[in-house]
């Protein structure tokens, strides 16, 4: 079972978000920060567009031969002394993870940031089975304290402000002096570091995600900015890597090409602060590292996307650029989308993973402005894929009845030009006459959605085609 979704209530979620002044203020930071940074990083690199093409090609090639690369990767991991587990769905993945933790006699588990772990709801599952998971990425740590889902795939707590974090820390870190000063962000950071340092040392198992898995070497790669991932995977005796199957790339060379577009697209950094490669458990000559190395490869709906129009979505490298540039995300934030993945990539991926009957709003809640596609490092045609979902909905009669009947009526006229000209001529003459005094309508029947927020400009009255016919009769065929 995947984690619970409120995607069916997208509209209500969105309205609530629009009326949350604190959230709106936080979203303003997304609008301003990420966009300029990405642009300046991209502008500084003359080959950036070519790198996007290369990234697109590498991922496509891998997806075409995914079975082969998965097998090759598995062999290499085994050869390096690690274990590979295949999980068809969230349930299987959770079982596998729990049994590894049980074998390690784990009481606490530290976790690096991992979206697939959110998808399978591993934290709640471990807790229910008496094992304490501790998120070590600062943003993830904060939202874990609040029992929330991330609102952004690379900045999970971007919806919060420092005061909210201070309140959470005071509520949870009760062993510390209640009168301590936490008014500066750096004090919050220092406190989190101190608390987490003990957790790192005490953990029995460390769980990380993976940005890339390299078939050639059996290596998993994570990129982080806080170094928490390294402590998570090096200190405990057991390291579990969770990754969905599309994280595979053929070679280290391919991985480094993708790394060149990843951080630039995400945060505008040339590289993230830490880029960590792990290949199997600690070898005898290694100074540190886990004694046990497990990789859980999770399908959870991906293989069903192969060979369909949604295969292109599997190129996604989770940089977050699409949501950073999305006017809808800017307006409502990530939680409104109601599941793990927000923004344009979520609007395409979520219906694939939890069903378009539940997530149908997501691909519809887009203006198709195309800004997401214009910044996607692997050139995923996100608006096109959202449109494909709308087509699936239309075929399955999931499109709302009001939209269907409106479209049907409009289509009926649009297919009959003579009738169309007659009807529109009459309608526009009427509307134009009614609106002649003010030039606009504050209210119109059947247009409540429009007139709730803006006036409806009145038509000029005579249609173009009517006037053209009148003025140019005889001049055109």
């Amino acid at each position, binding site marked *: 079972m995947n984690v619970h979704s409120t995607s069916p209530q997208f*509209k209500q979620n*969105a*309205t609530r978000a*629009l009326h949350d002044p604190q959230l709106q203020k936080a979203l303003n930071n997304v609008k301003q920060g990420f966009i300029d940074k990405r642009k300046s990083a991209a502008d500084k690199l003359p080959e950036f567009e070519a790198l996007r093409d290369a990234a697109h090609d590498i991922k496509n090639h891998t997806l075409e031969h995914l079975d082969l690369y998965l097998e090759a990767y598995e062999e290499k991991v085994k050869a390096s002394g690690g274990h590979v587990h295949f999980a068809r769905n969230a349930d299987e993945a959770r079982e596998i993870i729990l049994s590894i933790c049980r074998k390690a006699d784990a009481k606490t588990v530290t976790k690096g940031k991992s979206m697939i772990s959110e998808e399978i709801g591993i934290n709640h599952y471990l807790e229910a089975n008496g094992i304490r998971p501790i998120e070590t990425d600062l943003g993830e740590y904060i939202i874990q304290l609040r029992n929330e889902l991330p609102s952004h795939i690379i900045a999970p707590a971007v919806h919060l402000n420092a005061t909210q974090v201070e309140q959470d820390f005071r509520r949870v870190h009760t062993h510390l002096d209640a009168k301590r000063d936490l008014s500066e962000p750096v004090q919050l950071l220092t406190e989190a570091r101190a608390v987490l340092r003990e957790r790192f040392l005490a953990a029995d198992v460390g769980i990380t995600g993976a940005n890339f898995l390299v078939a050639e070497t059996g290596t998993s790669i994570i990129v982080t900015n806080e170094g928490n991932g390294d402590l998570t995977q090096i200190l405990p005796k057991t390291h579990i890597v969770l990754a969905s199957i599309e994280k595979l790339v053929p070679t280290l060379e391919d991985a480094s090409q993708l790394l060149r577009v990843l951080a630039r697209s995400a945060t505008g950094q040339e590289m993230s602060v830490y880029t960590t490669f792990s290949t199997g458990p600690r070898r005898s000559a290694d100074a540190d590292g886990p004694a046990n190395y497990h990789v859980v490869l999770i399908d959870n709906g991906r293989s069903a996307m192969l060979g369909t129009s949604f295969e292109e979505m599997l190129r996604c490298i989770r940089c977050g650029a699409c949501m950073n540039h999305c*006017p*809808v995300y*800017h*307006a*409502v934030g990530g939680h409104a989308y109601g599941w793990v993945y927000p923004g344009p990539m979520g609007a395409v991926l979520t219906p694939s993973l939890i069903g378009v009957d539940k997530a149908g709003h997501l691909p*519809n*809640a887009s*203006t*198709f*402005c*195309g*800004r997401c*596609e214009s910044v996607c490092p692997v050139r995923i045609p996100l608006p*096109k894929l959202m*449109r494909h*979902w*709308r*087509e699936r*909905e*239309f075929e399955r009669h999931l499109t709302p009845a009001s*939209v269907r009947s409106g*479209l049907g009526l*409009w*289509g009926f006229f*649009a*297919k009959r*030009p*003579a009738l*169309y*000209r007659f009807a529109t001529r009459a*309608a*526009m003459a009427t509307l134009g006459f009614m*609106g002649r*005094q*003010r*030039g*606009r309508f504050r209210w119109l029947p059947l247009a409540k*959605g*429009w007139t*709730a*927020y*803006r*006036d*409806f*400009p*009145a*038509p*000029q009255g005579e*249609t*173009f*085609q009517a*006037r*053209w016919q009148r003025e*140019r009769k005889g001049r*055109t*065929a």
Partner: protein
Amino acid sequence: MAKLEEGKFEAVNGSPPRLRIGLFVTCLVDLMRPSIGFAAVKLLEDAGCMVEAPVQTCCGQPAYNSGDRGTTRDLAQRMIETFQGYDYVVAPSGSCAGMIKKHYPELFEEDPNWRVKADALAAKTYELTSFLVDVLGVTQVDATFDGAVTYHDSCSGLRELGVKTQPRKLLSSVKGLTIVEMNDSDVCCGFGGTFAVKYSDISGAIVDAKAKNIGASQAPTLLAGDLGCLMNMAGKLSRDGKPIEVRHVAEILAGMTDEPGIGLAKEAARAK
């Protein structure tokens, strides 16, 4: 009168053949604001083209974006047949031109016969300002407009067709006109066709941000190349009581500003 680059289209000054343009007036312009269509005709004729407006309805984009491929194909086939005889097809809209240029070929991916025809139509279809500048090589227009304007880049024109410099180039040749750039001119206004009605709360928030950027530019006139976006922004500005005149870029370029701005009444315009 717009001037062609010297020698580019000799036929204009001498004998025919003149380019025969099919004006795809677009359904919104046809119904709501025909003066934009006549401004487009003037610009094209000034540039030496012969313009016809065959009987037409809609390119099918509302159906396409609602997931109704069947209706879209029917309407697309009608459009393809209507416009097949013209040298070029020009629309005063980046969104509608983009539908033909970018999406018609995709619509007939699995139908080779129609695909060929869709490709042919796509190849000769242009957004108005891009046709004037990129195809005809027009560098200036003979128009006067006193005052500052700010220009909103509509999404489809900008990102599907690369319309960005063309309208600005032509506007900068209008006597008395200055362009003041607003912040985020290339960010969506929140229209999105049926999106504006289906997700009106979100659309309202997006156009609110847009209206603030328009207001902050201090320009008394807002221009864009797509009537859908213009109606959305004009409706928001008038609802907020902001006295900003909103027009399609073609109206200014053609010097046809007798009609009141979008959302203004004739009486109000005369009183000004």
